[in-house]
């Protein structure tokens, strides 16, 4: 499934529609790749190098207790959602490993009740929608069903009497996704991107205050060693 450089082949719209039958709403999303497509492509990952698979035991992947700003139940639902957005898989650590829940908890502590309310009501609605349409709470669904629910939520299709998304399900999805991406790929100063797993996923060579012409040439020759520092590890900003 990959070319000599290990890249994915382009997936055509026709392929998408053909494999999308079972996933229903997925076919409505222009960029959507269905669960079926994911299975075929995940085998392509087997030959790839593994990224940062060793996890520090003190960070741990999945908290069992509640975040400071959410109940234990809400935390479970959020954890399951974030885990589907950027899963831990054969390619390496995912959002939970990167500390995205801790990042979000800090966001909620700093931005006050409005943000926490948006999370609480959105998570409750996500769970309600899962029960109405898939017959189980979100955390009990298979990953395939969790993904199809999240696709509905993303495209704003998670509607219906009593579901309760405020301002459309898409805005809830985008809020969680935006925070997840910030926690995964932002500076570790904010509690996410633990062990720089997000930057490793991107092959981002790290925060440098100065990049010489030699550094740039090394980057272009794929020989630049990544710097593993937060911006705030540089003396001027400490």
């Amino acid at each position, binding site marked *: 499934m990959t070319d000599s450089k290990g890249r994915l082949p382009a997936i055509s719209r026709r392929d998408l529609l053909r494999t999308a039958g079972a996933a229903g709403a997925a076919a409505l999303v222009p960029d959507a790749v269905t669960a079926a497509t994911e299975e075929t492509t995940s085998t392509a990952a087997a030959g790839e190098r593994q990224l940062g698979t060793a996890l520090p035991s003190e960070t741990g992947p999945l908290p069992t207790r509640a975040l400071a700003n959410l109940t234990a139940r809400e935390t479970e639902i959020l954890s399951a959602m974030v885990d589907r957005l950027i899963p831990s898989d054969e390619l390496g650590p995912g959002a939970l490993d990167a500390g995205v829940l801790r990042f979000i908890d800090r966001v909620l502590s700093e931005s006050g009740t409005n943000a926490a309310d948006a999370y609480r009501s959105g998570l409750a609605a996500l769970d309600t929608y899962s029960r109405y349409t898939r017959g189980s709470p979100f955390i009990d669904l298979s990953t395939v069903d969790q993904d199809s629910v999240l696709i509905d939520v993303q495209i704003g299709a998670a509607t219906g009497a009593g579901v309760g998304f405020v301002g459309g399900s898409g805005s809830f999805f985008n809020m969680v996704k935006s925070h997840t991406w910030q926690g995964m790929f932002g500076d570790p100063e904010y509690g996410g991107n633990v062990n720089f797993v997000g930057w490793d996923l991107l092959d981002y060579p790290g925060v440098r205050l*100065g990049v010489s012409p030699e550094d740039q040439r090394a980057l272009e020759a794929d020989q630049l060693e990544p710097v593993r520092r937060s911006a705030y590890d540089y003396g001027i900003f400490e």
Partner: protein
Amino acid sequence: MTTQLRGTDVVIVGMGAAGGVAALPLAEAGLNVVGLEAGTWLDQRDFAPDEIRNNYRDWPMLVKKTEQERPTSRATSATRANQIGGHPMMNAVGGTTLHYWAQSWRLNPWDFRVMTETTQRYGASRIPRGSTVEDWPFGYDELEPFYDRVEREIGISGQAGNVRGRISSRGNRFEGPRERDFPMPPLRWTGFHDRMADAARSLGWNPFPGPAAVNSQAYQNRPGCGYHGFCNKGGCPINAKNATHITTIPRAVDTGNLKVVTRAHVTTLEVDSNGRVTGVNYVVGSNEYFQPARVVLLASYTYENVRMLLLSNSRAYPDGLSNNQGQVGRHYFSHHQGAGVSAFFPYDLNSWYGLPAQGVAVDDFADDNFDHTDLDFIGGGNLWVMSDRRPISAANMGTYGQSRNWGSTWKRFIHEHSDRTHGSYIQKTTLPYEDNYLDLDPEVTDPLGLPVIRITGQFKDNERAIAGFMQDKMEDWYREAGAIEVNRGGLGNTMGASTHAYGGTRMGDNPETNVVDRWGFSHEAPNLGVLGASVMGTSGARNPTLTSQALSWRTAAHLVESWGDIAE
């Protein structure tokens, strides 16, 4: 209870890109200048390369004046305006130059004479219907010495293409003649820039490095650029970006003649019974002050310049200061159009380190550099391939139909392709029109209860035709360099708030269609000057800052020379 302060020669409202430049020639001439700035001083320690803080949280430590007075916008007067989108201007000493992209273009000679040049070459019928465009009251040659001066005072790097008529193919062969070279060579190129330049040449175009208010080498005792990659909405931790808070403002302070007052939120200007400006009112926290001045220079960016004039009613100016001809807020236009192009390459671009002011430009399709006889528009655009990549924004790249934008498949996609996309904004000629304007919003107010600006503006046929034409050129360029997918943004509709906002206090000789005269002083209140892109009547295909700075220096120099006439 308003505290009456001691009078000063000149008060400048806003210590940003424009006011921060004008302060220097005034202070050097021995005038006493008070610079009122809503924000505060920041320094290198405030400029951590932190994408979350700079690009997502919008600098939490700042004074948030502009954010609290975000303009509302609507396409036409038939609809209600909404306060949507942000307002990326910055309140600080140095203003938005602290975190701007620092592309520092001159306008080209055509931009000063759009009416005359178009009429002569193609006929008057080619001026778009409804446009209020006029020739500037002077040509490029008049502004050249001031471009030259600020390029040296601030520090601009670049490659000259026309020195006193001598054309160099290494620079922009279409630029107006400059007296001498840039004070610094251009910023370096990456391998991708070289590749794009080669692609441009094979299309028969003329690629060259763009001009930047960023040191390419040590200049004025500050170092050359570190290319750290966080310049987009980021301050420079090594002071290599030549913002006014480290260039002209401190030099003006050093003369002993400039006093900068921070956290000063100016609300209105006062006038006497003769219609002359007497000073400005401002608040610091809950304290109110009146700063008397013999001359007031308004330098608070396009929206705020217009707002402050419209809020300053008096017997002499019942509809707002300097607005007895109804021209304040007219001839507004912006580069909010979008209409960008993005491309997906089958190879890494190695763009993690670099800055938006570093890159390859093509001017073959800007202004009137090409024949428009068989085209349905006038003007054009500047093609620009820059470096601008940070981790979170990279992870948000489009997936070009190869993956949904999350999940395991996406993870594999982004691992392979995070450094393989490129986006172009494409600066385009934008013209003023009779039904595009700024006024006060009838409903939305800032925390002081003062109305915010309302933008009524729509990109018209000429602008949309340029956008489609330029998107074709950009796609050709990307494809020539090997792009395998190209996406295009919409051609533009409503003019939202922009960092490239022009007009509203347009400069021109005719007082019936312009707010300020050829020197930047009000046609109605002779001791009121206006600085910034609000005086510009055309945009060219350029970023406005350098032109607004050259105009500011020129207005200040004129004030020094004509002090007796203007201030007495």
